């Protein structure tokens, strides 16, 4: 098995084969879902609420298991420890820790030395533009700042697979645009694999290299679409015909799937 050892710093591919997830009580969230995500791809996942997007992400993270089918991450099928990061819809910070210590949590759980933890955490905090607030506590931060802390915490381990579940959904439009931009630049620089759940069509088109659209529960993929836009992206793009065309394609499928 030596040839399949994870090389450090290599993005992780994800593959789901015929995945079915039925919850206690009989809710069938996903049925026979197939999905392959290439290493280094930025995949946007769209679909009506309740269609199983979070369930999908949780199974990729190993936080939930399919009743049937297989979920494989990376060359071994099992992700390397600490190789995956997850950003939830809500920031889920520890209220008793300041920003640095919240961001350093993954490093701490990995058993890294304190001094190294601090400097790595500070670098991640700077990257999301929160250097001035690094000693503040979550209750002293705005919603947008908290979400950025959550993002910094996810990025601090330099993950090879980043799972994001409607991460900026509750933020105001300007903050969301700024974070989208930062995330996109980071992806361009590091090329980790990203699975990004969103309900905003333009966000999906703006960020991703590929987007899938799911139907109502049980979620099936009705559109698997390569986003045909240049890699230098920015807010200016939003009025470009090519961008608007991509949005239209996604929107149509979303409407279709929700019907």
């Amino acid at each position, binding site marked *: 098995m030596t040839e399949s050892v994870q090389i450090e710093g290599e993005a992780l591919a994800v593959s789901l084969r015929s995945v079915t997830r039925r919850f206690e009580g009989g809710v069938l969230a996903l049925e026979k879902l197939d999905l392959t995500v290439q290493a280094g791809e930025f995949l946007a996942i769209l679909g009506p609420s309740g269609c199983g997007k979070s369930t999908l992400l949780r199974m990729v993270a*190993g*936080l939930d298991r399919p009743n049937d089918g297989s979920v494989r991450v990376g060359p071994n099928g099992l992700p390397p*420890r600490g190789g995956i990061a*997850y950003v*939830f819809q809500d920031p889920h910070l520890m*209220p*008793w820790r300041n920003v640095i210590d919240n961001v350093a*949590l993954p490093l701490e*759980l990995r058993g890294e030395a304190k001094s190294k933890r601090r400097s790595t955490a500070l670098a991640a905090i700077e990257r999301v533009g929160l250097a001035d607030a690094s000693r503040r506590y979550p*209750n002293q931060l705005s919603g947008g700042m908290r979400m950025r802390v959550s993002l910094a915490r996810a990025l601090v381990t330099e993950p090879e697979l980043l799972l994001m579940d409607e991460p900026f959904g509750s933020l105001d439009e300007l903050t969301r645009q700024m974070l989208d931009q930062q995330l996109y630049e980071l992806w361009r620089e590091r090329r980790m694999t990203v699975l990004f759940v969103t309900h905003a069509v333009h966000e999906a088109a703006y960020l991703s290299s590929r987007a899938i659209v799911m139907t109502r529960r049980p979620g099936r993929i009705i559109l698997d679409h390569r986003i045909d836009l240049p890699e230098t992206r920015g807010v200016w793009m939003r009025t470009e015909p090519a961008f608007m065309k991509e949005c239209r394609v996604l929107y149509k499928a979303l409407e279709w799937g929700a019907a």
Partner: protein
Amino acid sequence: MRRSWQVIWPPLVTFVLLHALWELIVRRLGVPAWKVPAPSDIFRAVVDRSADLMTATAHTSAAAVLGFGLSALIGVAAGTALSSMKWIERAFYPFTVFLQTVPLVAIAPLLVLWLGYGLASVTVSAFIVSLFPVIANTLAGMRSVDPGLRDMFRLYDAGPLRTLFKLKLPAAMPNVFTGLRIASGLAVIGAVVGEFVAGTFDQQGLGLLVQSASRNLQTPLVFAAVAAASLLGLTLFAIVNFSGYWILRRWHASAR
């Protein structure tokens, strides 16, 4: 400064007025001091017997503080253990409710049987009465851990010990302190009641002082001892409350 003054003076005025009224009524009606002493009688008892009151308060507070300390340690440990596994909680939690319903006065003779008269029995009595709220609130706190943070710990493969010390215990702190606040008052009550049965005269606590004073119809002294016990409970409560405020000041809304 002005704020704290505004908090202090209304109850202070009420206190003074009520006592003046009490003094007036007792004097007017000529009620004997052994039945209902006037505040001035009680004050005289406090002054005359201050040495006795002080040593009794010291003895009672020793038992109350020790019992409270045991409750804090064992209650948090038990709450943690109960929360660690669903089946442990199911199997044991119902029995902890007995702690709340146990008639202390009835089991105090058993304590004497097992531990003899004196500090040990009185401490255990304070411990038994104050244990349940610590267990129950610790358990509630552990259950209230943010599920997203739990997932975060699972994602990074944190073991059960790390999860306990870095997530569950800190997250349960506000609830733990709620339990400790309740326990602090109960520990004093438990100690005083324990002294009724298990106290010794060479280490006379407030419970025993109340008993002997009432037997001798020194009713003003009874009132003084009761006041001392209440004050002791209040002090312990204040200390716990302040420690909680200090530890949780960063983040807990109720601490502000």
